[in-house]
């Protein structure tokens, strides 16, 4: 009745989802992030980062449309002509669709994200603001999470400065991304790279852990721009004043992420709950943001298995109107309201203006 990879939610999951999204949107609002709304239908653009994986349909004009597969790209495109200099904060929430994701644990073809973009600011302070909000989002939901920060620009700069041909740079990036040291060694042995370059590249996959990793990285013979990125990260973490996990060998889409990239994990759940980073120059001169996967949060939160009972059982319409403003009220249909209230644990009964406790 519904296609693979989609989901329907009943109580209490539907309520929990609305609550999760509400809390995140409220948190972002309190930090100055204004909501925006985007259409679920976009014009198909082969340059879009998820172009291949998006659902496509044909418009009545014969043009190809795509179902929204992420928010950032379209948001940046739509805003570009309207915003001037200055700092802008936006938040978004809604469904996304991917054609070819496998339907398995926490991966869907129709799924929901809540996220934010900080436009017009860059540097350690802006990075720290975005990272702080990632922590705050997990805390607002009561999720025990660990935030991991990587620096794709470090890997990018190290590869660009390596003198490897472009094809080999891409192969090296793939090997670093998988922490596949044997493959990386074999690859480097086939090209005339300097010992410094080899040392740096071979060290990257194992640069994960806590603060000590920064020291290890600084000891490497890094190209100047990579060193610069490292200094910026150190400043960001000082401002953030919270422990994070580091993985300086994170090599994901380094041509897109110009600075940090981060994710959050929770013990006992195998997929990241949120992800984001800085992408100056990709869609916008200065921009960073992240998005949370709502279905994954729900999976990690393990929703309560019972439906929540109302606070008041109203015996007539008058009582429903009278008390629904202040409490959760349900109108009663049936024979024995007292037995019903006791069975479901409803603390109050009400008729007209009167309200009394269930004995």
């Amino acid at each position, binding site marked *: 009745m519904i296609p693979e990879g989609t989901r329907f939610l009943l109580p209490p999951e539907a309520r929990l989802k609305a609550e999760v999204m509400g809390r995140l949107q409220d948190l972002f609002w309190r930090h100055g992030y204004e909501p925006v709304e985007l259409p679920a239908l976009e014009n198909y653009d082969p340059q879009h980062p998820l172009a291949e994986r998006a659902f496509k349909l044909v418009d009545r004009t014969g043009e190809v449309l795509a179902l929204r597969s992420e928010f950032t790209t379209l948001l940046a495109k739509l805003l570009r002509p309207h915003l001037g200099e200055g700092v802008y904060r936006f938040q978004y929430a809604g469904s996304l669709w991917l054609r070819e994701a496998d339907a*398995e644990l926490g991966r869907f073809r129709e799924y929901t994200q809540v996220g934010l973009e900080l436009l017009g600011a860059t540097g350690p302070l802006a990075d720290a603001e975005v990272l702080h909000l990632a922590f705050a989002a997990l805390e607002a939901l009561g999720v025990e999470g*660990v935030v991991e920060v990587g620096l794709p620009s470090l890997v990018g700069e190290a590869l660009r400065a390596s003198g490897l041909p472009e094809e080999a740079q891409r192969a090296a990036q793939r090997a670093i991304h*998988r922490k596949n040291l044997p493959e990386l060694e074999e690859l480097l042995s086939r090209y005339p790279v300097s010992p410094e370059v080899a040392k740096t590249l071979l060290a990257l996959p194992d640069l*994960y852990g806590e603060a000590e990793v920064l020291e290890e990285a600084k000891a490497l013979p890094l190209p100047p721009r990579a060193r610069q990125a490292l200094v910026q990260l150190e400043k960001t973490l000082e401002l953030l004043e919270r422990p994070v996990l580091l993985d300086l060998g994170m090599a994901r889409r380094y041509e897109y992420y110009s600075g940090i990239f981060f994710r959050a994990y929770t013990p006992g*759940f*195998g997929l990241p709950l949120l992800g984001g980073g800085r992408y100056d120059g990709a869609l916008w001169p200065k921009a960073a943001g992240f998005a949370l996967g709502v279905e994954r949060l729900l999976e990690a939160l393990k929703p309560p298995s019972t439906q929540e009972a109302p606070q008041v059982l109203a015996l007539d319409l008058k009582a429903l109107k009278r008390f629904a403003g202040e409490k959760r009220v349900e109108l009663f249909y049936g024979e024995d309201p007292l037995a019903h209230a006791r069975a479901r644990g409803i603390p109050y009964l009400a008729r007209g203006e009167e309200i009394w406790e269930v004995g």
Partner: protein
Amino acid sequence: MRRYLLTLALPKGRMFQEAYAALKAAGLDLPPVEDERALLHGREGGIALLELRNKDVPVYVDLGIAEVGVVGKDVLLDSGRDLYEPVDLGFGACRLSLIRRPGDTSPIRRIATKYPTFTARLLKERGWVADVVELSGNIELAAVTGLADAVVDVVQTGATLRAAGLVEVEVLAHSTARLIVNRQALKLKRSLLKPLIAKLRNRDRGP
């Protein structure tokens, strides 16, 4: 659901024995494999071993049910899953090859395999237009019987091929057993996994 210190996904059969020995030698406190028929070995709070079909190992590790797995590179090449593969364990060596009937040089129109993703990628790279038929065992029969013009399959010694009267036309990839690690687990359980990886790597470079 039981909780374990660490869950390992291993393929059943010979690779299970070799992986068990290698991990034990690297200092992991592995549970004894007492009941031959059990598919899950280990006690709560300790290390658990899952015995799986080799193709299922990357699935369990990617989804975080198992944090660590051992599986052949041939399976990884076909799985398309985003995992860490920090160590080449060296054993279980084999190759993925293109196999045909002797003297057959006709264009390949239909190709049978246990590795459909790998084969589809190969076709795309070479610019060959052929249908991929996914089979689950005794793939060489597809070439012998004419179900397919060629077969992409794993070859160890080549004895099975020769017995079937087929020839190995081209080696497409070499494979050995790899240690694979879930992306989150490597970070969250790094105090356990970082030393394990270091020990297994040193074992590679040994005598």
